């Protein structure tokens, strides 16, 4: 076991979206990193929807990119369609969503891993986490290999005691056609980590050649230059269309008629699945009054005929899946390439983790991704990054990277995971963030690159780019505040042409920009010939800051108001049952979650503002334990 060859700083278990980011973070921080996966051909796989982004999710991708993560760049390099969601709304809730060439994404990510210094990729199934004095010492593989290490990051996805269900058939599998990990859960349970069961499902894929596209509505992407990554030049990407069709009465009749064959009805599946991704069976049960449900037919890649049926998730028997599909317009002759299925798996209750994603019970053991009860590639990736970074920082003896709710969606995600009582796989939404107007995709670099640089995952050059942007924005704002526009005929005609009202008295450009209908590029183009700034993002950011100034300031005020609660820390050894005055429910919930701060405590369901006042009083009067 002392063989140097088998000694690592960090071992990452699982090479999905969380595992890849975790391994890259620690290896790039110069730690000897081993990335273990059950199947080396399935790295960074997208087993469900071949897409990255979406409302709330693309914000996570931007933040990860601003910190020095990998996902955004690989997505930019492999996407085959890009859309802006919430286009008619403000910048805070606008989001990117990309269709990804699934195979290309895997190949690209594997290439990056293979060429990363300090990173070793290896196929193997971990059976045991080795622990001494509540501290991780290494891992053992099925078949008896040992590896020693300082820290372990578990990013096992749906593989722990994975069980696949189609109709009345079940298989032990992590994903369709892949071995599950049958022993790791027991090892975790033995170490005192509690686990539960979740379920999720995926729709069937069909052959492109068997679809009658004339009966569907084409859904093209955008052909404007865009990227996920801040560090890549914007470009116009491939634009391969998706197609829209709908289920109908006949579809629903088939489902209703055979509902006893649906695993969610027959009782084969009785675990919680994500409410945002219900199966078509569930939709027909829960919303019988709806006459149709949309189905998006999405390409899985540019070199394949496989098409993904978004909206038709089901784990009904295969022959019924075929009937359901063929009842839909445009899919009358569609052939299934692979059927849809449900997978049930072990996850750990995430409230057993610190905000660093380290276990509260076993030191140097980190968890990231779906195993923490989340759903989605983006949610997994950011956790992988945070776990990988914090495992490394801990080895270096440096303070951890903990992002707050006020500064990031990543902070919202991890705080929610640890604080809230979650009954289903967790997906990000913009409505989860209290300070949504501040946490925009477009300003993630301004918010977070300082942490990426400080940690060492962002280069000096990258960070300086952000600093320059900040400096230019400051300059531009000052410039606009001083630039006075006079109410002469020429100026007023220009404003009128722009759809804005004319001036009666002189106004600064800053004031004019506050009008919703004005556009910074047109104004600068007309009134200023002495601006040297080239980066269009500087203008965009400045315009957003000016146009939404009132709301932005209001949110900053809110943050200040609550920052006191966030600053008051709660000792971890406190017994809330001994604090008099708290309701029993609050005592119980607080003892389960063991919040780090009063702010975190205030977000626990069942803890009322009155309980917080009492907690505050007892903390101040020094009642401990």
């Amino acid at each position, binding site marked *: 076991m002392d063989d140097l060859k088998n000694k690592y700083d960090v071992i990452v278990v699982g090479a999905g979206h969380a595992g890849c980011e975790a391994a890259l973070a620690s290896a790039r921080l110069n730690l000897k990193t081993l990335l273990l996966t059950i199947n080396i051909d399935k790295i960074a796989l997208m087993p469900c929807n071949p897409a990255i982004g*979406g*409302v*709330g999710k693309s914000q996570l991708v931007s933040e990860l990119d601003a910190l020095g993560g990998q996902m955004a760049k690989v997505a930019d390099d492999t996407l085959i369609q890009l859309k802006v*969601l*919430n286009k*008619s*709304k*403000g910048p*805070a*809730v606008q989001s990117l*969503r990309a269709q990804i060439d699934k195979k290309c994404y895997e190949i690209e990510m594997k290439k990056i891993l293979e060429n990363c210094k300090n990173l070793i990729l290896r196929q193997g199934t971990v059976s045991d986490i080795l622990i001494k004095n509540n501290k991780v010492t290494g891992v053992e593989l099925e078949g008896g290999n040992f590896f020693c290490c300082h820290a372990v990051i578990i990013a096992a996805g749906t593989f722990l005691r994975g069980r696949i269900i189609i109709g009345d058939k079940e298989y032990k599998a992590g994903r369709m056609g892949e071995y599950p990990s049958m022993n790791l859960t027991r090892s975790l349970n033995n170490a005192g980590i509690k686990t539960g069961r979740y379920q999720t499902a995926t729709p069937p894929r069909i052959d492109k050649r068997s679809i009658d596209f004339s009966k569907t509505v084409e859904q093209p992407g955008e052909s404007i230059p865009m990227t996920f990554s801040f560090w890549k030049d914007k470009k116009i990407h491939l634009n391969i269309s998706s197609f829209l069709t709908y289920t109908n009465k006949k579809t629903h009749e088939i489902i209703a008629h055979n509902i006893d064959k649906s695993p969610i009805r027959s009782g084969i599946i009785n675990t919680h699945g994500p*409410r*945002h*991704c*219900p199966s078509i069976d*569930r*939709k027909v049960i*829960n*919303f019988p009054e*709806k006459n149709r*449900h*949309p*189905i*998006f037919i999405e390409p899985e890649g540019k070199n394949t005929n496989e098409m993904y049926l*978004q*909206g038709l*998730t089901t784990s009904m028997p295969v022959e019924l899946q075929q009937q359901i599909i063929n009842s839909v317009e445009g899919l009358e002759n569609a052939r299934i390439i692979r059927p849809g299925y449900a997978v049930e798996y072990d996850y750990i209750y995430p409230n057993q983790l610190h905000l660093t994603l380290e276990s509260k019970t076993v030191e140097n053991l980190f968890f990231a991704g779906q195993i923490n009860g989340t759903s989605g590639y983006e949610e997994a990736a950011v956790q992988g990054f945070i776990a990988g970074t914090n495992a490394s920082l801990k080895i270096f003896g440096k303070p951890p990277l903990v992002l707050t709710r006020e500064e990031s969606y990543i902070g919202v995600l991890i705080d929610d995971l640890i604080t*809230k009582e979650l009954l289903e796989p967790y997906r990000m*939404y*913009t*409505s*989860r963030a209290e300070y*949504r*107007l501040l946490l925009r995709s477009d300003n993630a670099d301004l918010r977070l690159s300082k942490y990426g640089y400080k940690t060492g995952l962002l280069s000096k050059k990258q960070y300086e780019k952000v600093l320059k942007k900040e400096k230019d924005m400051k300059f531009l704002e000052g410039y606009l505040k001083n630039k006075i526009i006079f109410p002469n005929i020429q100026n007023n005609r220009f404003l009128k042409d722009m759809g804005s009202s004319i001036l009666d008295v002189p106004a600064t450009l800053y004031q004019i920009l506050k009008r*919703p209908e004005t556009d910074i590029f047109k104004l600068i183009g007309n009134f200023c010939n002495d601006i040297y700034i080239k980066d269009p993002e500087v203008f965009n950011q400045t315009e957003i800051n000016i146009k*939404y100034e009132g*709301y932005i300031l*209001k*949110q900053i005020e*809110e943050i200040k108001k609550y920052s006191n609660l966030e600053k008051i820390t709660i000792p971890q050894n406190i017994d809330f049952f001994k604090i*008099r*005055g*708290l*309701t*029993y429910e609050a005592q119980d919930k607080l003892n389960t979650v063991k919040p780090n701060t009063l702010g975190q405590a*205030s*977000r626990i*369901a069942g*803890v*009322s*503002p*009155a309980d917080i*006042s*009492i907690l505050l*009083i*007892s903390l101040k*009067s020094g*009642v401990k334990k």
Partner: protein
Amino acid sequence: MNDDTIAALATRAGEAAVNIIKISGKESINIAEKIFKSKSNKKICDLRTYKIIYGNIFDKNKIIDEVLVSVMKAPKSYTREDIVEINCHGGMVAVNKILELIIENGARLAEPGEFTKRAFLNGRIDLSQAEAVIDIINAKTINSLKIAANNLSGSLKNEIKNIRKKLLDIIVEIEASIDFIEEDLEIIPYKKMRKDINEVHENLIELIKSEEKGEIIKNGIKITIAGKPNVGKSSLLNLIVKKEKSIVTHIPGTTRDAIDEIIYMDGIPVTITDTAGIRKSKNYIEKIGVKKSISEIEKADIIIVILDNSKEISDEDIEIIKKSKEKKVVICINKIDKRSKIKKEKIEEYIKKENIIEISATKRIGIEKLEKKIKDLTIGKEKFEIEEKIIINKRQKISIEKAKIEIENAQKAFDLKLSEEFPVIELRAAYNTLGEIIGENTGEDILNGIFRKFCIGK
């Protein structure tokens, strides 16, 4: 935190035939044991909770009073601590002596509201309930007691819950339209949403209004009678007071010259102040009198200006009327049984005709009309049904006003046609603010609402 034992007189001093002394805390039973001997020789500590025992309070060997002692053991008591209540006779000498004995034996005198504070700190009641209890303690009238009881039982909570539910429905629609833009959702039309927001706004205004009425019921109405000497102020005052004499109490005025009388109208206390300076009829004093009247006028809810029907209006009269105009004012033309010299048109320049009432204090004409006018001006024309109204207190009012402003900001954002994420910030803020009043946080309400309402998952 609350290791000491507190005691206080639970009934109002001097008002009742029987007084109750309440002791709360760890030592309450021990302390009572030391000063009490039961007729049946039973110990208090042997009593089951909620039981009463009969006996005497002793100071050494001397009997102080014959009493009933009841025990409520922790945590099933108001404060969740051991509570002993001593029911003794009304005389203040005995009450004070018993309290002294209790304190000698280790308790301390409770601060005002401290029992409630403990009930709150020990998790027995929430903040809005605690405030309602404090209101009960301070209640001056039967009506205000009813309101306080109503509040405690949670009707305020229910009303706020109702408003929050309406608000949540709107928030759910908006958030669904943002986070689930890719779904095929039928979001309610903007116009309907705007209407629903207006409704919430109106509900909040109603609640705020109820605070003003609550203030009146709790603190009563203050009426100032103003007017020159010999216009009949005291005879009118005596008349009103005598009519209600069964419940009249006489409290000496705070200033040497003013006399306050308290009467009850429909259970609401009405303090009537007779501005006294004007009684002295020398000219230079009259000027001081006017000044004094003016300062009394500023404190009053209603001013009754009495004029003499048999005399012409003087400049002082006009000045008083002018000063009163900011307030609710009733002009009382007295002595209508005498020949009229007064020019009513001159008064009507300043005061609405309906607020001018003609009376004769000596002949008892028009008194009912005057009383009705006072009621109309204070608690409103409709009969005040206490059971149906929810009265809020100051703290709650501040929160509700905050929520109201947040709703108004949302309305503005809607009217400016800003996209949905802007008004919803304000709506969510209002939802939180209202949650604070009843002690609920937002948690997963919004997402749960979306999943309940919409078929998500394209």
